[in-house]
């Protein structure tokens, strides 16, 4: 690395990264507040079961998970005779509450701290994501600790495949612009982009597992078990990367500096890979951050189809189960990764394109 580059990196790393990280805090806070509130107000609750729970059990569970408290410090009252009305009345008996028409406002600090949202935020500060409301003996921290590394591994492989396949397809298509090779590459790209994951997954399983018997159709037991799901996960984004690469490279090929490079007698291969591809890097880096965050937090469909014990499936199942702490847990991990990935992207972007300064 050249000294100028190093100096440049040092410069952005101090102020730039620190500021971006600090900005991440309000962003995450907003994510928590909004998803928490929306989730709690959604109809149906974690303990609405096919066989209704007896009233005392329901009461105990709601108290244990603090569901009997107001969700926010500001709320509207409900009819006193409803179960919810009774719960709120019990809360109001304990803490001071002011009312403005039908709207109630918790006026004491302890009262506010005991509303569902603030109790959750306090718990988060202690690093505790809470106990799952479906698997009532399991802490969400433990669920994530068990499942996130699996999704991370699968997602990382898929990420590498995405860029490997995507850039290769894109460069080849650009090099042979207008020929049948370009056409074929773009047909593959269009197919990959438009084919839903579960169709592609089923297709790959049929060919490689059930017909050729080369790879396992599902489960998570070793390296061979990563290939098909990672490929399934990578195909969609890879085709997107292929299109970005192709158009970036083609744009560059019309530029004067390419003509100069060619005039200087550089080989076509070198022109393409060094000069033209560099031009396509910008958009490739821009999409890499969110893409990486999405891939490593897992995909419901791919994990479901391949029976992989990752965290991706919780994005769906936990919502269906109204398992509030688990939904919040996976949402937080996803949001934090998006924030982090975007910071990394900005840094990379600055490195790739010296025109970008603070």
């Amino acid at each position, binding site marked *: 690395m050249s000294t100028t580059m190093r100096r440049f990196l040092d410069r952005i790393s101090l102020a730039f990264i620190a500021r971006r990280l600090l900005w991440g805090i309000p962003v995450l806070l907003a994510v928590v507040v909004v998803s928490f509130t929306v989730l709690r107000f959604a109809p*149906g*609750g*974690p303990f609405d079961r096919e066989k*209704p729970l007896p009233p005392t*059990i329901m009461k105990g569970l709601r108290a244990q998970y603090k569901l009997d408290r107001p969700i926010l410090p500001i709320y509207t009252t409900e009819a006193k005779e409803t179960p919810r009305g009774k719960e709120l009345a019990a809360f109001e008996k304990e803490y001071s509450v002011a009312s403005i028409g039908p709207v109630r406002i918790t006026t004491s600090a302890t009262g506010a701290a005991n509303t569902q949202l603030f109790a959750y935020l306090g718990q988060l500060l202690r690093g505790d994501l809470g106990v799952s409301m479906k698997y009532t*003996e399991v802490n969400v921290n433990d669920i994530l600790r*068990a*499942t996130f590394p699996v999704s991370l591994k699968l997602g990382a492989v898929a990420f590498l495949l995405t860029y490997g396949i995507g850039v290769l397809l894109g460069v080849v298509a650009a090099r042979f612009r207008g020929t049948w090779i370009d056409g074929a590459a773009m047909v593959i790209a269009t197919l990959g982009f438009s084919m839903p994951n579960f169709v592609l997954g089923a297709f790959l399983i049929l060919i490689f597992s059930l017909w050729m018997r080369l790879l396992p*159709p599902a*489960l998570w037991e070793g390296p061979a078990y990563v290939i098909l799901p990672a490929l399934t996960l990578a195909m969609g984004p890879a085709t997107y990367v292929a299109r970005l690469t192709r158009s970036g490279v083609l744009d560059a090929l019309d530029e004067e500096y390419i003509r100069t490079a060619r005039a200087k007698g550089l080989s076509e291969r070198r022109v393409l890979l060094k000069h033209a591809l560099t031009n396509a890097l910008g958009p490739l880096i821009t999409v890499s951050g969110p893409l990486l965050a999405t891939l490593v937090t897992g995909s419901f469909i791919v994990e479901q189809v391949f029976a992989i014990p990752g965290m991706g499936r919780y994005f769906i199942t936990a919502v269906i189960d109204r398992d509030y702490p688990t939904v919040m847990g996976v949402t937080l991990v996803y949001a934090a990764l998006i924030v982090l990935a975007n910071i990394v992207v900005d840094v990379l972007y600055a490195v790739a394109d010296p025109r970008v300064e603070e």
Partner: protein
Amino acid sequence: MTTGCERDASKQATLRVALPGQPTTFDPNKAYDAISGQVLTQLHEGLTRHDKNLTIQPALAKSWKFNESYTEITFELKPGLEWSDGEPIVASDFEYSWKRLLDPGTRAEYAYFLYDIEGAEAYNSEKGTRENVGVKALDDHTLHVKLNRPAPYFPHIASFMVTYPVREDLIKLHGDRWTDPDKVAVSGPFKPVEYLQDYRMVLEPNPHYTLGEVRMKRVELYQIAEKSTALNLFVAGRMDLVLDMLPLAIPQMKSQPDYYNGPKLEVRYVGYRIDKPPMDNVAVRKALAMAIDRSELPSVLKGGEIGTRTWLPPGMFGHAEEVGLAHDPDKARALLAEAGYPEGKGFPEILLLYRAGDDWRLIAENLQQQWKRELGITIRIEVREQKVFFQEIDGESPPPMHLARWVADFPDPENFMGLFKSNSGNNSLGIKSSDFDRRVDQAVQTDDRGQRETLYDEAQRVLLEEEVAMAPLYVNAQNHLRNPDLGGLEFNAMGDLFLGPVYWKSEEASR
């Protein structure tokens, strides 16, 4: 299509099972879902258990005896029983377990299962004390139970997972973590050696188990929510047993030796909300029930279901084929006209609510068509997410009709009939009939089968023909895939899974 026959010989000792999803708990007292049950029956034993014909058999109990009025029962434990850690299994392990199940602090969904025991309901609903619950270990081998009403079916209750014995010392020591493989002690054929969240549990034989020879050296219970995935694994020879197979593949697998189809004590029905117009008119409820041709449902669902108009399902004591409203479209039209809607004119577009799921959607669509065709009325069908569905049907303004099911907890009519008693917590229909309640209560005062049958027939007629609180649709089926080399694998209509006696036929032959 190839099947699971092409197994790897070196793997022969391991039995690989695909469960249709994730168990919610490994704590017997807190369990409520079928998948937890499929795991727990491998790890634990109850006092009794059901054989393949649903006859009650001794398990940890050697025998039991009722008093004359069926209000007290005494269980005698088998001698020499041990937990997987070598400690003796004693009657007080049951006393502790049952009281823990009833403890309101345990928050067990199935606590009501023991409400027949004296003082149980009071304790569970915080109105009584633990000491006043009528279950007591008289000595290490004798468990005495005082009931608050005659319950000749009680030995069935003592087979259910929530009544399995648990260890007080381990629960006190480890809290919620006592079910971890390295901490738990079990009473059943297998003990857990490894558990991976969301993936699988590995079992090995419990060396202290004395109720039978355990032949599998290792069992792997995989949690595979996606039915097509389980099917793929089976076809690729990587699963030996798939529970609840993909319904779409049934026609294809039907002729294979791998395919198992059997009845299940699960009845699906249309529940009416009988206290709101137009459903408050019994003629309307009758017309809707009689317009349904039940034979159409199995041909839509394709899983070996059996149409039924009775509430007590075939295969269970008390089932009587001729009870319930028969399919009679002419009569249905006449009844609807009588109710003020000739040829369906003026009938409001009422709602039939169902929960997310392909099978539920198929039923709803089929019923909608049948009612349109036979009665000329339009029924609105709407789907809800599971949790929203459960909330709405028991909420403040329940829909006029909803699709529901009842899966037997124990194979006795009491379990089905008790559901619609006026005081039942599971009664989502709003039926309150003293005629019905009285007969159902009378039917448990005796163990005379003839007398009980008569009372249940009468009660069913009140429910289905007089009050018409609901319309039964069909009895569900079990569809599994199993390696034909598996011996000793028997399913009963309760869906109980016992892997203890399971063995490889080929291995047995070479032994």
